[in-house]
């Protein structure tokens, strides 16, 4: 028995063998990273032309390092934004993670690796709480994580003051486990005479891993669906709440990682740092093509966004300008990125 459904098809079935050829422009315009790539090339050429020191390889290494410090957490923030949520607490979480490791080990005379693990557990718990509150209460993640942000900022300053009596932690460079932990989180190596910090490598690893998860795994499919239309995702059986909580924990994990990098890079941590960094992560993700409303974006795009940050931060210095201009650039860049994203998104979904 066969039921034949005859429908007036707009295009005849003759062309069923070969999919219609799309122009390169159409393919490119459908990619969320397009705007960021164009901007990165333009900015690179601009500073290359006007600032002599910008052209050297050691300068590139410094730029990459500056980019990696923003880019590591931006990867997680980009995934979270594709999943339709927002995290304002990421900046102070980095500091909280570094402070936790440092103070627990210093006060209790523990091997630093114990502190590294304790702060990992604590950070994942904070991410879980952020996510759990968002999915259970339905309160916008902006407000939930704004609350976490202030609570963590207060805890960072207050607990550090209570424990150390100052606004910074003690130097941990002579403690057990320092050398091996520094090798993992904050070492550097030489490639052809140019020093490369290991955080650059980690940044690329995280960006590539996240890209792979996003485009090639089931979880990635779910992240797009949850951000694009949570109700329909739920209706076809996607565990929406678990995906969202997992994304918040992903941001916390990367904040923890960067926190460990900062601790082993500098050996001591200032309790007040990290405030304002969350916006840089978010801007890097948005410049990289993530839509504030969710459902669209790219992990590798956030890496390009972070690279634009790194180039501009250092480029302004190499060009001998007042670094204050950086903030003006930041604002303009964000505005342009949001407009480009909107255009690309509308183009991608317009009926053709």
């Amino acid at each position: 028995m066969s039921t034949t459904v005859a429908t007036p098809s707009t295009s005849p079935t003759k062309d069923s063998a070969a999919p219609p050829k799309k122009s390169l422009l159409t393919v490119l315009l459908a990619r969320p990273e397009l705007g960021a790539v164009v901007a990165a090339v333009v900015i690179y050429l601009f500073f290359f032309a006007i600032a002599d020191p910008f052209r050297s390889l050691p300068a590139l290494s410094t730029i990459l390092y500056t980019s990696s410090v923003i880019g590591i957490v931006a990867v997680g923030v980009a995934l979270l934004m594709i999943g339709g949520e927002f995290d304002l607490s990421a900046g102070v979480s980095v500091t909280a993670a570094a402070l936790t490791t440092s103070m627990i080990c210093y006060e209790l005379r523990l091997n630093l690796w114990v502190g590294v693990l304790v702060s990992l557990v604590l950070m994942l718990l904070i991410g879980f709480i952020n996510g759990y509150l968002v999915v259970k209460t339905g309160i916008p993640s902006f407000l939930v994580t704004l609350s976490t942000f202030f609570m963590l900022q207060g805890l960072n300053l207050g607990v550090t003051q209570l424990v150390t009596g100052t606004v910074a932690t003690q130097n941990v460079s002579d403690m057990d486990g320092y050398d091996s932990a520094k090798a993992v989180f904050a070492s550097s190596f030489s490639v052809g005479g140019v020093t490369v910090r290991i955080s650059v490598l980690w940044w690329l690893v995280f960006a590539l891993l996240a890209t792979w998860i996003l485009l090639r795994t089931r979880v990635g499919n779910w992240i797009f669906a949850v951000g694009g239309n949570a109700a329909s995702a739920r209706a076809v059986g996607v565990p929406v709440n678990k995906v969202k909580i997992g994304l918040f924990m992903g941001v916390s994990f990367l904040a923890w990682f960067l926190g460990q990098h900062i601790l082993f890079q500098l050996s001591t941590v200032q309790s007040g740092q990290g405030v304002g960094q969350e916006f840089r992560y978010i801007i890097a993700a948005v410049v990289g093509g993530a839509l504030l409303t969710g459902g669209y974006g790219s992990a590798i795009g956030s890496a390009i966004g972070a690279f634009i940050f790194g180039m501009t931060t250092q480029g302004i210095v190499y060009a001998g300008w007042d670094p204050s201009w950086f903030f003006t650039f930041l604002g303009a860049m964000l505005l342009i990125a949001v407009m480009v994203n909107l255009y690309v998104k509308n183009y991608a979904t317009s009926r053709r």
Partner: protein
Amino acid sequence: MTDTISEHAQRTAEKGTPLIEMDGVGKAYGPIRALEGINLTVSAGEVACVLGDNGAGKSTLIKIMSGLHSHSEGSLRVDGNEVSFSSPRESLDHGIATVYQDLAVVALMEVWRNFFLGSELRKGNFPLAPLDIPKMRSIADSELKKMGIAVKDINQPIGTLSGGQRQCVAIARAVYFGARVLILDEPTAALGVKQSGVVLKYTAAARDAGLGVVFITHNPHHAYMVGDHFIILKLGRRVLDKRRSEVSLEELTAEMAGGQELAELSHELKR
């Protein structure tokens, strides 16, 4: 050309076998009774139409069957077994698939990703196992082609398709994944005449293949074209419950338009 619907529909159910039976089902949200005393049987190979105005309780009825809310009174049986769904997954596992008018698909995702959303094919069963993308693309492509849905490119975001096509992709997806009962929530509400026709044809095709279909609508003309059994809801209660042989389109239309109330009104307004 054989149709996917008959290929995938489970052939165990004979036409007329009851799949879902509701007996006095009701739902109260706190003190508000959104639905009460609903008796509805969805049988294999039949289309049960649920008609009603806005706020009549249609969406509550869907939510109970699709597992978004559990019922608070009466009994709901699937294949003769008493159930109370607590999640959409549970309802899906019983072979009940719901296609929502406005949230059938995720607009920004590609057609093939939408087709397999929530039931992705993977190469391996470990966390983060890679998706079998070529296979999913080719299955989605051939399934849609078999149903005569002309999609230019399986990789285009589904938001670029027309409303009718999106509904059809959602229906094809539900059928492919072994749905025995198809709940269609206002499938023609936002569509033009031609697009509605396409959706109605798939509805009829699904029925002929032995699926039980629940067709929710406020358009009696569309309902009468495919329905075997009609229920009209008003303020959460059943005001009409007739088989196709017992009711005419005129009666259905009149009842939907307000029935007795409308007759009284027209009497009052008589010039």
